[in-house]
């Protein structure tokens, strides 16, 4: 055979092989933020297959709520922190082949010196010990919102279980028991900062430690605490000591499941191949290295225990029994409406000239959503009578300050006040933030509330942040300043303000309810 023909044939063969290897599948996954650390492992597989994978991150309850909507989710796969949320919300049975990738107990990480001070090092600690420490004012912690994120919901359900005194499972009537409500309400008074995402909460802990603010403790996944401690150790900071509450914890099973949108057999095959890849021995080892538990994987693939902070993925933890779906729903409503720490929220509404027309409309729609209990409760962000709300419409100056509690009448008044505002004039969001801060700091019994400032704006502002930040640093409490943007917003100033105050900016121009749900998860 002539040489040229051989090489042409070889080339053709190679091209053919390459074509076989690259599937050109586009595959999208919506996942809990705790899986950010696993994304490179997934992307490696996608690259090998010639597929384009996109991973977006949402709270597990948001993934559940998405499944519950008639249209469902757009993604090809879900990867929440626990299959409970799929069981609970996927009533249309859209998710198939749901398979656990790893086990992740939700535990309490306590700053090591604090744990020693509380006498918790090297001893079994029960929820009642944690309760006593909170009651005595000796312990505060970070915990995600139970109505948004699986780790918060898990910690909350473990608290409820424990408050029942070791009953096998939470039943509907238990939630009306005053002593249970009292115990859990007291435990939740320990919340110092909240968020809608476990990953973000862990970042907050590390960032704050870098800035010199050291929080006492954080409820999070065992594996996320390992990630956090790896970073803290690198920074030369004190690690969080792992407390595995001896009376039971909730364990997330981190399941990956397929949603069939009828996009063809190659998409489903890609999913099953991805699943097989994640379950292969080599990849299981890499997953276990992140601190995740893989039962039956054996000691060979388990991450090494780190006794200096009590981390031991081989340690047996008893998990609480998840209650019936109706009970979980009721427990979540109870959290939002009665047991969570009340919020103290100052809302700055930008009614400056640049907000005319479109921006103004979006702002009024936002107020409608925020102050209409039926709408807000659909996505579990309703206010409660014990919440305090300030509304500050502003342009170049703060036009007025309205104030109400979170009951229906108070919300109605705030809605009417906002409805009267018309856009016009200059802009100074820092002036509004400053006044909001003063209102918050002047509130009686401030420690009973989770404070936050939310600025709703298109982002174009005059003035500077220096004076506000000076006041902010001088304040007795750390008040995060969140942003919700409208129109074609310029996010840069808002972003740096959020960053300086350990908060976030959300885009309200597309999915308004989603942005507020996200923002509200942080207080």
């Amino acid at each position: 055979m002539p040489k040229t023909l051989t090489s042409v044939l070889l080339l053709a063969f190679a091209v053919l092989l390459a074509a076989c290897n690259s599937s050109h599948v586009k595959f999208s996954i919506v996942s809990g933020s705790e899986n950010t650390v696993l994304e490179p492992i997934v992307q490696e597989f996608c690259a090998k297959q010639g597929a384009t994978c996109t991973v977006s991150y949402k709270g597990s309850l948001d993934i559940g709520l998405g499944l519950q909507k008639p249209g469902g989710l757009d993604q090809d796969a879900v990867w929440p922190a626990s299959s409970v949320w799929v069981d609970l919300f996927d009533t249309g049975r859209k998710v198939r082949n749901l398979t656990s990738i790893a086990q992740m107990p939700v535990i309490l990480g306590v700053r090591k010196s604090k744990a020693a001070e509380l006498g918790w090092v090297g001893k079994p600690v029960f929820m009642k010990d944690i309760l006593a420490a909170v009651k005595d004012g000796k312990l505060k912690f970070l915990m995600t919102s139970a109505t948004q994120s699986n780790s918060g919901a898990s910690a909350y359900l473990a608290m409820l279980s424990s408050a029942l005194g070791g009953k096998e499972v939470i039943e509907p009537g238990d939630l009306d028991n005053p002593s249970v409500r009292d115990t859990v309400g007291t435990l939740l008074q320990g919340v110092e900062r909240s968020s809608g995402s476990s990953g973000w909460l862990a970042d907050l802990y590390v960032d704050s430690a870098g800035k010199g603010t050291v929080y006492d403790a954080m409820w999070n996944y065992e594996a996320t605490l390992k990630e956090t401690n790896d970073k803290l150790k690198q920074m030369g900071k004190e690690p969080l000591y792992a407390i595995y509450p001896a009376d039971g914890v909730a364990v997330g099973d981190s399941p990956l499941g397929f949603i069939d949108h009828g996009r063809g057999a190659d998409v489903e095959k890609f999913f099953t191949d991805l699943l097989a890849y994640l379950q292969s021995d080599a990849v299981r080892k890499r997953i276990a290295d992140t601190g995740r538990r893989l039962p039956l994987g054996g000691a060979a693939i388990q991450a090494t225990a780190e006794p200096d902070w009590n981390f031991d993925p081989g340690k047996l933890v008893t998990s609480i029994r998840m209650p019936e779906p109706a009970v979980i729903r009721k427990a979540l409503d109870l959290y939002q409406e009665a047991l969570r720490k009340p919020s103290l929220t100052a809302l700055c509404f930008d009614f400056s000239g640049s907000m005319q027309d479109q921006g103004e409309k979006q702002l009024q729609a936002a107020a409608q959503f925020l102050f209409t209990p039926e709408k807000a409760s659909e996505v579990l962000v309703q206010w409660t009578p014990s919440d305090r709300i300030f509304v500050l419409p502003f342009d170049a100056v703060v036009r007025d300050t309205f104030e109400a509690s979170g009951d229906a009448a108070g919300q109605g008044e705030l809605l009417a006040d906002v409805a009267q505002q018309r856009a016009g004039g200059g802009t100074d969001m820092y002036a509004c933030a400053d006044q909001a801060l003063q209102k918050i700091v002047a509130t009686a019994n401030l420690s009973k509330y989770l404070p936050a400032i939310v600025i709703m704006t298109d982002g174009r502002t005059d003035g500077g942040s220096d004076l506000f930040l000076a006041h902010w640093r001088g304040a007795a409490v750390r008040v995060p300043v969140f942003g919700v943007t409208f129109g074609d917003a310029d996010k840069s100033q808002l972003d740096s303000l959020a960053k300086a105050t350990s908060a976030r900016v959300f885009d309200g121009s597309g999915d308004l309810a989603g942005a507020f749900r996200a923002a509200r998860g942080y207080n």
Partner: protein
Amino acid sequence: MAISRRAFGLGLLAAAAAGTGGYLTLKDRPEFRGYLGNKAHLFGFIGGEKQAFLADPDVVHALGGYGLELDARVAGSVEMVRESALLSQKPQFLWPSSSIMVDLARKSGVPVRNDQVVLNSPIVVYTWGPVVEGLKKSGLVTVAAKGGYNQLDLKALLDAILAGKNWSDLGIDELYGRARIVSTDPNRSNSGFMFSGLVLSLMSGDVATQELLAQHGDQAKAIFRGMGLKSSSSGKLFDQYIAGGLGAEPMVVGYENQLVEWALADPARWQRVQAGAGAKPEILYPRPTVYSAHPLIVIDPSVDRLLEALTSPKLQELAWSKHGFRGPLGTVTGGADAAIAGVRPAEIEAVLPMPSADVMLSLLAQLEG
């Protein structure tokens, strides 16, 4: 190589003769019928636990020998005999996981031509090594004199759960809190359904009747209420058991064949688990237990051949050795894969019949309320 015309012709003749003789022989052997063409395509619904069996290439091949090709779609046992959305698709056969479903099918107006139990799988309890050790100490688990398998005094366990006993009271110090056992949702999945019948009969002290249900229904209800969130499918619950381990899923109800299928799906993994230091999965046989029978409900005459095939020694052996299903009377055909030798006894003593269909329907209604 050269071959003469004559030799070639003789060769053809010989081949033809062999072919004809072969054809005559094959025609009388039903298991080879399929190799002669004209395969019948049969459509029906099956319980999910038989999916792996029917997808097994050896099974597909053996059924192919009978001239059969199945379009078997998975549905819940209860829904396949009751849901009009499924029955209106005109299935030629139904293969649920409980004999009671035959009665329910008749009640829904399904024209049942014939029905016969083809496979059996006892309801078992899946647990972990340390639990077995503890329960042996407290006397709830004993080793069967015949067969040497672990049998569980289920009545005593249920009583302990109802009395609010802790794991430590039952001899298991590794686990904290109340003892518990979890099954699937009896209203959605067959293993939970069978277990609810067994629980009611045990509480009643006899195979449950309407009168006994009136007396003991509350106890059965309390057992199921204590389970909390229940899975909708036996396969899912078994996966949760394996994935969750001792701490998350100390005791779950399932079919005997599930662990066998899991072990054989990846023998290397099974070896590793057996050799490892961690808690190992274990089967407990409740004493007494109930059999989940798998009756093939024949609607279309063309399915008669499927019944013949499934009860043949060849397929019965595949069902046992590769998928852990027992035969029509709970007996076993052939050996088992060496990888899982000793996992299951050949024979199980003390099997209780299920309560009748009307008692079960009343029980289901109570458990839902």
